[in-house]
């Protein structure tokens, strides 16, 4: 074995990033990460992005990763730097986003001594990430970084936390970075059980009312084209979870809509009546199933998932298939290539339900009143040649997932599992960095917008021209909706305007030039050096997006003043079945 050159841990860290093909790193310096940042100072291969808060930093890396399919890389300091990324890690973990998060740590000799800015990062992160590890010896550094990238991107992707004590960063050691990984406790499933797959195909062949239920797994595996081919051949209705929207293009004739609590009637009814539920890449979250005993009770369930632990966790599964969605769907295509299926009548039945129960918003206050539907449908029409859309969490997210048409070339980023407010804006900044030639738009509420609004500074200084749409209804609207429907209209602490002027909220406020609201989002945008536009009328929506398109040197904030009492429908109350759906 050749005697290799001795380099510092921080230098090996940078070398590892380059070897892993990392072109962008989201970092925020601090005392225990200073050596790593020093090593990055002259590194030309890695573009270091400096957000203004560590939580936003992880969301930006997440948006970058989801929109590019690459691993998002984060670097923060110890203590508060590490605790601030926890929300972002949990967000990525829930939605299976590959991240590698490096955290600075006090020297190993001080660990456990309650040193300045010391926390047990590994202990804190352990339950919300795929894998967390502290590097305790300089000689382990290369191997552990190699393993971290492998674990993050393979199998069911997820965030990995690598805690780097100061002495490991400055310690001298081998310059070698391993080329291979062998982790004895981690062997992701790469094949598929052909016997199970054939059993599933036989069921599909014999089913009278088959339904494909697709989750985020198909998007993550980038199996969209293969899935579209399969759906076209089988001709069965395709319904998706929020994370699965876009698994097949929404303009495909087999596509029905989203299922679940705010899913469209036809999609939920199709599942209720189906005799075969062919599900791929979903974990049957409670937002999808409602009351589990009533869920798909007439159906035999086939479940394809890369994670064995997702199978039969929430619903009983008749035919479990552990496989990556791409591998499974390719095999399904191969085995069904010469088969013919006739689901025309069944598809027509479901499509008819879709026509008779459309998702649409009434114009309660006249034609000119601005509804979220107007905004999102304008986005659909305006960005014909592709767009990345991120959402925040709450009503804005539900409307976006209902109305946004995910066709090819479009991508939807949303915190589906954890439901993290403050996700949308930093995520779209990360997405734009990864996709500089694609328009990038964020849909947020006024509540979530304020949870990471400081990222305007990041986008302004780096000249990142994203469009940040704030749907301002002066409320934490989703909770307000629940209070209206299930808590006797007791709007406990969900109003974000001035408490004493609560009686003036809604219609009256929205008709003014500026809402009775703090902050004034337009002025705030301008103070950061961004552009600000306020839209109060449905006729102004398209012009606002056209105006935003002209701004190439900074982000544009568009504040849409919407009515406070617009709710998300249809809705199936928590724990209820499709029979109990509230249409409007």
């Amino acid at each position, binding site marked *: 074995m050749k005697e290799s050159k001795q380099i510092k841990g921080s230098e090996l860290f940078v070398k590892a990033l380059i070897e892993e093909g990392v072109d962008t790193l989201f970092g925020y310096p601090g005392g225990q990460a200073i050596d790593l940042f020093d090593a990055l100072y002259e590194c030309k291969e890695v573009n270091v992005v400096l957000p203004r808060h560590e939580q936003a930093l992880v969301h930006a890396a997440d948006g970058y990763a989801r929109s590019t399919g690459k691993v998002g890389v984060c670097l923060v300091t110890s203590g508060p730097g590490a605790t601030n990324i926890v929300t972002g890690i949990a967000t990525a973990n829930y939605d299976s986003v590959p991240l590698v998060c490096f955290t600075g740590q006090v020297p190993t000799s001080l660990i456990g001594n309650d040193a300045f800015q010391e926390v047990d990062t*590994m202990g804190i992160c352990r339950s919300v990430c795929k894998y967390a590890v502290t590097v305790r010896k300089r000689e382990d550094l290369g191997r552990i970084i190699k393993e971290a990238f492998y674990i993050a991107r393979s199998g069911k992707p997820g965030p990995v936390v690598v805690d780097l004590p100061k002495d490991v960063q400055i310690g001298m050691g081998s310059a070698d970075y391993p080329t291979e990984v062998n982790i004895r*406790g981690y062997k992701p499933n790469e094949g598929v059980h052909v016997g199970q797959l054939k059993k599933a195909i036989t069921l599909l062949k014999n089913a009278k009312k088959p339904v494909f239920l697709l989750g985020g797994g198909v998007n993550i595996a980038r199996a969209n084209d293969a899935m579209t081919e399969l759906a076209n051949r089988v001709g069965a209705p395709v319904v998706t979870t929020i994370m699965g929207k876009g698994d097949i293009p929404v303009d495909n004739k087999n596509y029905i809509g989203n299922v679940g609590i705010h899913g469209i009637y036809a999609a939920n009814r199709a599942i209720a009546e189906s005799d075969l539920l062919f599900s791929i890449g979903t974990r049957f979250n409670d937002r999808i199933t409602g009351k589990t005993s009533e869920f798909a009770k007439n159906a035999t369930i086939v479940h394809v998932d890369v994670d064995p*632990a997702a199978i039969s966790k929430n619903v009983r599964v008749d035919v479990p298939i552990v496989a990556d969605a791409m591998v499974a769907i390719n095999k399904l295509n191969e085995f069904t290539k010469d088969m013919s299926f006739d689901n025309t009548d069944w598809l027509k039945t479901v499509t008819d339900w879709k026509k008779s129960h459309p998702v649409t918003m009434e114009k309660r206050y006249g034609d000119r009143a601005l509804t979220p539907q107007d905004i999102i449908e304008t986005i659909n029409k305006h960005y014909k040649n592709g767009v990345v859309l991120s959402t925040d969490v709450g009503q804005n997210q539900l409307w976006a997932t209902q109305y946004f048409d995910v066709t090819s070339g479009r991508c939807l980023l949303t915190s589906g599992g954890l439901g993290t407010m403050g996700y949308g804006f930093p995520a779209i900044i990360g997405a734009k960095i990864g996709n500089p030639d694609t328009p990038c738009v964020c849909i947020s509420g006024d509540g979530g917008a304020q949870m990471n609004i400081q990222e305007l500074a990041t986008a302004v200084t780096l000249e990142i021209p994203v469009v940040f749409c704030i749907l301002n209804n002066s409320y934490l609207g989703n909770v307000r909706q629940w209070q209206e429907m299930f808590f006797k209209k007791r709007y406990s602490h969900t109003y974000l305007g001035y408490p004493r002027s609560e009686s003036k909220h809604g219609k009256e406020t929205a008709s003014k030039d500026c809402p009775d609201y703090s902050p004034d989002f337009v002025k705030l945008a301008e103070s950061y050096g961004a552009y600000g536009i306020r839209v109060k009328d449905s006729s102004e929506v398209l012009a606002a997006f056209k105006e935003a398109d002209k701004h190439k040197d900074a982000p544009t904030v568009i504040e849409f003043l919407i009515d406070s009492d617009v709710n998300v429908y249809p809705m199936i109350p928590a724990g209820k079945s499709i029979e109990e759906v509230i249409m409007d």
Partner: protein
Amino acid sequence: MDNNTTKKRWISLFVENQIGCLARISGLFSSKSYNIDSITVGATDDPTVSRMTIGVTSDDMTYEQIKKQLNRSVEVIKVLDYTTIPIHMKELMFIKVNVPAEKDKTEVFRIAKVFGLKITDYDKSSILLESVDTENHNDDIIRLLSESFPNRLEVVRGGSVAIESISITDR
């Protein structure tokens, strides 16, 4: 959920012998609300591998989830289900009995003889007993002694360790 299948189960777990591994495994149980009856851990002949014996009481569905969740942990090398296969399992238990009276001492010695307990230590007022036996047998001993000597016992149990029996064909 079907609770009719609730019963005692045993898992033998091979894990990486690293700082934090026990916390990871026990944390996995607590985060999913699975109750651990007992857990033991120790290094093996390979110093990089630790082995755990975990006892849980659960229904079939939960138990399947527990095994899957353990399997997907990066630190876990192997999960063996010992619930239905022939195994050897023993638990170490110490019982200190406070018995100043001579007739009580005689009774403790008698019990020790009958139940195969080792007298490990002894002085004027106390006897220290050691039992290496199954969990159920140790339960019985505690029950018997607490009936005879209420409030005069001090008990410490080590949790069970288990290993698969040598199969007949290998003998």
